[in-house]
């Protein structure tokens, strides 16, 4: 046993204070460690599986008016605190230009999506039916006098389903490749099909003045909802962009590829895209909105 009797009283006091501080720090460390372990177990139970390989969705968005008088785009992101149990749902809806009430319809679409949330991840047919129901409601209200596009992704446990009506974009950036996942429902699809079946090249289709005309949209009769029947596997550093065409009218896929790289987080990626569109200074810049999701390695 150390003998403190020969030490001055002041030194003994300092040693006692130091010992008390050490014990406090040690107990605090034990408390924090235990709390963390308990929280992780709780999260693992919530996810219902081993979370060691789960990626997390880093999410950001922008929502800009461009040169239009009204903001006809609407954006939806589900509550992120529910992401472990219900996944992340992100959507963009673009009110159709040239028709009245585009702003109202796109807002209505995302408000209804919010009511439909939470959605069962593996019930792609059910979710698709809900979107069709929303479209029917718009049709009942406006009778083709208004409409909107819709692109939506649903991400859970490193898998993604997507849903699309109209000509907005769901873009995947993976390992330097940029891919538009959903096909645009416009007239050119029919022209290309016809020309390809006839064995000819298809440049004529791209010259057609009605090439970009929509053949389906939210608010149409018997809307066809494009949707995945099984989910796509996602990987670390995948970047998913859910955007209206105001973004891709200003930024080509090559430009997007050069601009967005995985070393940035979602907020930085969103800012880069937004500035990229703004700097393009298109005289008739459409409303431009996007949700950017970057798949990151989870800490748990």
């Amino acid at each position: 046993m150390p003998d403190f009797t020969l030490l001055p009283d002041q030194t003994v006091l300092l040693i006692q204070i130091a010992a008390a501080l050490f014990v406090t720090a040690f107990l605090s460390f034990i408390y924090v460690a235990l709390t963390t372990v308990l929280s992780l177990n709780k999260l693992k139970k919530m996810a219902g599986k081993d979370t060691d390989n789960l990626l997390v969705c880093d999410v950001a968005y922008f929502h800009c008016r461009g040169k239009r008088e009204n903001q006809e785009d609407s954006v939806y992101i589900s509550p992120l605190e529910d992401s472990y149990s219900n996944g992340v749902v992100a959507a963009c809806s673009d009110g159709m230009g040239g028709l009245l009430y585009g702003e109202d319809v796109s807002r209505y679409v995302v408000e209804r999506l919010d009511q439909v949330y939470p959605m069962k991840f593996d019930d792609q047919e059910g979710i698709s039916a809900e979107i069709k129901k929303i479209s029917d409601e718009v049709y009942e209200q406006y009778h083709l006098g208004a409409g909107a596009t819709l692109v939506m992704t649903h991400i859970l446990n490193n898998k993604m389903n997507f849903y699309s009506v109209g000509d907005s974009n769901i873009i995947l950036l993976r390992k330097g490749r940029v891919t538009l996942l959903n096909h645009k429902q416009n007239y050119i699809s029919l022209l290309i099909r016809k020309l390809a079946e006839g064995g000819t090249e298809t440049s004529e289709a791209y010259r057609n003045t009605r090439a970009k005309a929509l053949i389906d949209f939210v608010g149409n009769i018997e809307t066809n909802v494009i949707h995945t029947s099984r989910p796509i596997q996602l990987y670390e550093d995948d970047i998913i962009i859910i955007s209206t065409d105001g973004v891709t009218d200003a930024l080509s896929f090559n430009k997007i590829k050069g601009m967005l790289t995985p070393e940035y987080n979602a907020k930085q990626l969103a800012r880069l895209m937004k500035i990229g569109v703004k700097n393009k200074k298109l005289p008739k810049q459409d409303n431009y909105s996007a949700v950017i999701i970057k798949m990151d390695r989870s800490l748990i």
Partner: protein
Amino acid sequence: MIEYFTFKHSGEKESYKDEIYLTVVPSVTVAIFYGSVLPATSKVSPEMFSGLLAEVSPDPDFNRMCQVLDGKLPGNAEYLVLRIEGSRIACFRRGGVAAKIVLGGDLKMLPNGIFGLNEGDRILVATDNFYSHLSDEGILADALVTDSCSDWMNLLVRRISDVNQLKCGNLSAVTLLVR
């Protein structure tokens, strides 16, 4: 049951020099011959390939059939042969023709060998020229949003058209769906 859809396009070239061979009896056999990459002086032609395949394909032993076929074709011939029997698929490829299968939300290339098949599996067989205008992510997305082979092929052709308006040399592909 196997559903299939074939696509052959000269792609602005004067003639179509690839070949797609398909039989469904006694088993489903799909083959693509990549004739458009061969020089005009090549000894092997699409007709020769089809003739040889028709001759050897009744052999129930897939490996032996491929060995015989390989031995009879010149070294520069590029092709792929698939045989589907029940819940098994056998693949043999040489050169720039490949088969890709949708598996667990991903797209994987089928190597040479025999593998199991499940209901709903989707397979694309195509030449390198067809693949060169597509990304795996695009092929996968199109497979997952369609419920027929013809719809899947149409979406793939649309993607290629968006790149080059189908002015890109011979295009040959087959989509397969296990029902």
